[in-house]
């Protein structure tokens, strides 16, 4: 049985390549039961106005293969953002749900 993998994105999309690389790895491990969670400054990666040149194709692939991308509601609100600021195809979840998702994983890959 394949493992449950959670790719955790933490870093902002500007100043580092971590979110882009995290999504690249999420695609790579997508044969497993994979989920992506975005917390802290990584939520900026999913704003409508963010330049997604480096990872839009990964995001499109994840959407097509029904691999969910969960955005931490607390991280969003702390930064004065709302779900309306986000691109389509991502899901805002309560912090407690994000924690449950991470707790249930066999492996967490943090970027």
């Amino acid at each position, binding site marked *: 049985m*394949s*493992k449950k*993998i959670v790719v955790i994105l933490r870093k902002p999309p500007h100043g580092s*390549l971590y979110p882009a*690389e995290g999504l*690249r*790895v999420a*695609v*790579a*491990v997508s*044969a*497993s039961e994979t989920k992506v969670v975005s917390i802290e400054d990584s939520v900026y990666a999913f704003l409508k106005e963010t330049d997604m040149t480096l990872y839009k194709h990964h995001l499109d692939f994840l959407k097509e293969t029904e691999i969910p991308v969960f955005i931490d509601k607390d991280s969003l609100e702390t930064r004065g953002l709302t779900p309306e600021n986000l691109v389509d195809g991502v899901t805002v979840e309560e912090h407690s749900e994000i924690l449950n998702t991470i707790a249930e994983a*066999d*492996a*967490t*890959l*943090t*970027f």
Partner: protein
Amino acid sequence: MPTIGLLFFSGPYQSESPETTIELAKAALEKGMNVKIFCYMDAVNCVKTGQKKVPGVINIEEQFRELITKGAEVRLCTLCMLVRGTKDFIEGARRAGTPDVADLVEESDRVLVIS
């Protein structure tokens, strides 16, 4: 024997992350565990050949050579090497791709991420 997978991100000589990775890997090997390391992003530069030996500074190239000699498996993100122009790397390490990260997770009892 359990297998530990290390997904490792940091380049040499800036933070102590390479030293942490090396010490963890050594400790696991000494306990008889299998160790698999995937060098991602700047970490591919940890296995570059020709790193100058400086007194008082741990030579990361030598340390990785030792890990491989002791049985650690070291895989390198090929795309990360290409964009950094990293060409020459120590014997025993091998080029890999992100699908190898999937293998690393499947093959390991525990995966640690060291950034």
